[in-house]
């Protein structure tokens, strides 16, 4: 099962907190899994993330959120994408997010979220499976 083209992913680190080591590790893992990863760096606002996702026509947006602002950031990015007609983008990511928040966000349309200490290979497999399923639906 090979995809018809590489999966395109935007990796961003919203919020004001310091380093982007985690996001960089994720970006490298996704690249090593054969994906085209647009990396936008630190301090990204939801507007910057959504604009980049639209312009880059990505399939997936991966956000690394450590600041605790996940309950506002994820829905806002999703909303901005929807406003521009991109309700087909998988918005996923990780950070220190309590399980019940994950459930709430999932109900709002956010994809699976990964807690700290998750192996990047879990995220890779999740994205690959999601993409393969979408390609099957389109075919």
């Amino acid at each position, binding site marked *: 099962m090979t995809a018809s083209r*590489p999966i395109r992913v935007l990796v961003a680190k919203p919020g004001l907190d310091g380093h982007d080591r985690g996001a960089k590790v994720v970006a490298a893992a996704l690249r090593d899994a054969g994906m*085209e990863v647009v*990396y936008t760096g630190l301090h990204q606002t939801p507007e910057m993330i959504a604009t*980049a996702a639209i312009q*880059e*026509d990505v399939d997936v947006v991966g956000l690394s959120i450590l600041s605790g602002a996940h309950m506002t950031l994820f829905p806002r990015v999703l909303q901005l994408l929807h406003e*521009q007609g991109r309700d087909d983008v998988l918005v996923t990511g990780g950070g220190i997010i309590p399980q019940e928040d994950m459930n709430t966000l999932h109900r709002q349309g956010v994809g699976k979220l990964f807690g700290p200490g998750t192996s990047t290979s879990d995220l890779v497999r999740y994205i690959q499976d999601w993409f393969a399923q979408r390609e099957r639906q389109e075919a």
Partner: protein
Amino acid sequence: MSAAPAASDRLLADFAARKPAALARVISIVENRGAGSARLLAALHGATGHARRIGITGPPGAGKSTLVAQLVRAYRSRGLTAGVVAVDPTSAFTGGALLGDRIRMEAVALDPGVYIRSLATRGALGGLSAATREIADVLDAYGFDRVLVETVGVGQSELEVARTADSCVVVLVPESGDAIQTLKAGLMEIADVLVVNKADRPGADRLRAELKVMLQVRSGPRRGQTASSRGAGTDLSGEPADPPEGGGAEGAHGSSWVPPVLTAVAADGTGIPELLGALDSHHDYLVATGGLAEQRQARLRARVAEVVDLELRARLWGDAATTAWLEGRLAAMDSGETTPFDVARELLKRSGRLLAGEGDDAPR
């Protein structure tokens, strides 16, 4: 990401309504050479021809993206819009790519008059320059005044990409001095403007002086950046490489263009007005010498050749009767009764109507 006719009509309507998501999707279809890509490009062709195309290339980390962001900012302050294509290499081992050029373009990223797209080379030799040219066409058709294409000047295919622009800026840094002998082979050939970036570091003026000497040595009748010496990928014509006579545009020295060598600090914007001026001069030069028209014609010629190549191949090898006929000739070639060359000639002769698109004689 294919586009059936109805879907592609909707996409074109959204594109005409200037929806960024539609622009982005059209570029994806063109990049993937997906179904409907030829139809989309044909539909957009009439709207092209307005944008000035500028290539920016140079060694890794020279400050290309930072410079592109500064150029875009300067164009925006003149009221011009800009589309940017930033190309990064695909890993030969994994097929993946890390596209990081946007980081340096943050300052202009939210401007609605700016569009930035990151592309991976996808290991497509030659195909990359064709795809990039088509994507530049799409940005042109969308209405951008300037289209800037950033590529790392390392491999041949990246240099080919730079060649598809009207004007090509080669960015070096003071530390490039040692590598100048190897650089001059590839990068110097394609430079219309040279920029020694990171001039806040020692050695910039020295490199600038060295480059100027090198260019003076080169600038004889041999030198002359016109479309015929640049081409657009496919050289079908064998046109003379001599520049047209009498091009006295501002900044041009005599009848041939000698690339100016500038210094810049992209990090703080120093040298950007001079770079803009040099690009304007080069454009004026191209207009005055007819080089611009020649470049556009070279692009059109190359485009027709590409489309014809693809179409002929598809018609011939997509035809079941043809492949069956070829199968039937294998034994005769194997036994030495005939040769592959005779069979090829026979095959072309019997395929006249097929290649002309008049359908096949044999009922399916």
